């Protein structure tokens, strides 16, 4: 795992670094001397929907945050389209966890989406009509334009999640990093998010999505990273998402294992 040459990606068509949305080499992150992720290395191909799967505390959020430099790396290197994140930041859209903010904040949904444009608008300049129009378009895309002027605590959980998604969409990025967008959302929101992910894929964009529902992994993602402090395996879903790998990721936890076996059985039946 420590070698820079990656076994899985070398089997595929070689990509130039500029075409690789995310490449992570030997990434280690520690909180208070305790490592959270160890020697994580992977590359993801462009235009794929990538699921990051692993048990609680496996370091999924940490990985995403470390990719964006939100938390310091103990060691390792991360490249976004062949450059450090700081150089290619404008090509990355981030959808944080819904719980990460105080929803009682005095702003409405449209304001939140407009925040995705603040960097583009530039320092000290006001938000203009065209920016609000673009934010409105993004809200329409996620299907909650009717709630644009609601204070954000009056939105349902699914609508809040969609607001965050719209804030990332409005940037028109090439790579999207999403931290549990499917956590505690209603069926309609889940459907809407999946549809948007598909649209992204068709437009040649890449999404790196933390996901916790093993049942839907084969359905939603073409590519999977199995993470439990270190990368267990990564690659195309049909190659990597196997019961053996899941057992390695989740350990001998019975319920999860059963769940996974069940998923795999159903997949085989459908094939």
């Amino acid at each position: 795992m420590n070698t820079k040459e990656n076994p899985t990606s070398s089997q595929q068509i070689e990509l130039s670094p500029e075409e690789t949305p995310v490449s992570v080499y030997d990434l280690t992150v520690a909180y208070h001397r305790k490592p959270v992720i160890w020697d994580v290395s992977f590359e993801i191909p462009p235009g794929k929907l990538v699921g990051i799967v692993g048990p609680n505390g496996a370091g999924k959020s940490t990985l995403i945050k470390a990719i964006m430099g939100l938390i310091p790396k103990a060691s390792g290197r991360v490249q976004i389209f062949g450059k450090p994140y700081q150089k290619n930041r404008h090509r990355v859209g981030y959808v944080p966890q819904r719980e990460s903010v105080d929803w009682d904040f005095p702003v409405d949904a449209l304001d939140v989406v407009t925040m995705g444009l603040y960097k583009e608008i530039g320092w000290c300049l006001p938000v203009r009509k065209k920016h609000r129009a673009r934010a409105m378009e993004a809200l329409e895309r996620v299907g909650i334009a009717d709630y644009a002027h609601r204070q954000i605590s009056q939105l349902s959980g699914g609508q809040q999640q969609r607001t965050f998604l719209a804030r990332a969409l409005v940037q028109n990025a090439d790579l999207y990093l999403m931290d549990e967008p499917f956590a505690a959302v209603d069926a309609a929101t889940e459907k809407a998010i999946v549809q948007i992910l598909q649209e992204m894929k068709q437009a040649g964009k890449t999404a790196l999505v933390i996901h916790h529902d093993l049942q839907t992994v084969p359905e939603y993602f073409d590519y999977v990273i199995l993470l439990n402090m270190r990368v267990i395996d990564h690659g195309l879903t049909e190659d990597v998402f196997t019961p053996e790998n899941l057992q390695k990721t989740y350990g001998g936890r019975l319920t999860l294992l059963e769940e996974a076996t069940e998923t795999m059985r159903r997949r085989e039946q459908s094939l």
Partner: protein
Amino acid sequence: MRPFVLVLLFAMFWPECMIFAASDHSEVQSQSSITDRRIDIPEWNDWKRVFLLEDYNTRIVVFGTTLLGMAAGMIGSFALLRKRALMGDALSHATLPGIAIAFIIATGLGLDGKALPVLLVGAAVSGLLGVATILLIRNMTRLKEDAALGIVLSVFFGAGIALLGIVQQMKTGHAAGLESFIYGKTASMVASDAWLIGCAGLSCMLISILLNKELTLLCFDEGFSVSRGFPVVLLDMTLMGLVVVVTIIGLQAVGLILMISLLVIPPLAARFWTEKIVNMTMVAIILGALSGMIGSAMSAIFPNLPSGAMIVLVATAMFLFSMIFGIPRGILIRKLRRYELNRKVNRQHLLRGLYEFLEARGRLKEKQSSESTFVPLSKLLQMRSWSPAKLKKIVKRAQQEQLVVTLQEDQIRLTKAGLLEATRIVREHRLWELYLITYADVAPSKVDQDADAIEHVLEPEVIAELESLLVQQSTEGVLQSPHTIEIHQEEIKARHSSRRRST
């Protein structure tokens, strides 16, 4: 409960001052120390002089404190939303030793030790030192920020008091008046001070207007802000710097103990009136300005009362008013909404009860005038845990809305409009129930949204799906309840018991 406590505190402050003043009457009049709280009842002319700003000095003081209040309201909004309000409190307490040391150094150098700029520089230095100590304690040890705040606040303030004691003993220069920084005293403000305060306040406001976008994003979602490449640490320091400046320039008028309230109270009061950050800042600016203006004018009328207390009391009065009467977040409007919700729920229960009563007996389709559509109140009482008096009230209200008609012997029936409304309510209720069952995992977050119109909350596809489910279960086109209706069971029970009795 809380408002009453605050009112009580508010009321208590006044008589106490009066009592204090009365007992102090025999003291030497020339003493201008903070302990002299003698109050003369001002004459009409004094009021006129102050409120028409006839005095040059009053004008200056009111002008300065108004700008101070505006700046504090604006910067306070951001500090509050960034959850840094207590940091401002620690900071203002930590300025005291700096004031004393600046005085000692300045008099030692033969300068005017009581020149405002000199003292404020000292205050700023030791205030920043205090904040740095807090951050240092927080980052180096495992102590939480509140503990660090507590330590720094009290230690610096204690050191300041001790230094002030030393300063009083000094032979060089008379230190009297330095204590006014503790409680605030506008009387010692001169034109140049007011200009300094005004200009600094305006600059703070200008900076936060320019950085409005960036500060808003920082306060709302720090992680996203970092991911977009905003220099969060720098922005945080800028915000802290603005808080420092506002605190420092407020020391003379408001005093270091009460300065935090001018930063916190106007934005908090403003929050009751709006859900938009821009409006909140605007209202906070206005409330801050009014507090500064009225408070300093009052202290010009009562020169022996600390102006800080005056300003804070004015701000608090506005806060109380906002908390009670604010729309859309005040107490009254929320109570009113709750009351209306309860009324609505009761009305719906009544209509649903009537509908289900008729439905269970198959009398829904019968003519409105026929006697079989009458429902005795006693049956309704059995269905809900209403007291007879409460039910009477609910029925009376429904009658006023022309949804039901009361007949003799405690019998009521639905009007045409009532039946329509009841049908709608029952349909929606059953859709909700079905939704709860079908989407049990996510439903609670949606159902509590207080929307009686299901189509405003759920997506059309979901409703269509639920409706088809309901229709599947029913045969006659009437939407059936997904669980057996209670009356139904009651009747079965009743039939059982009567059968048992007959056998």
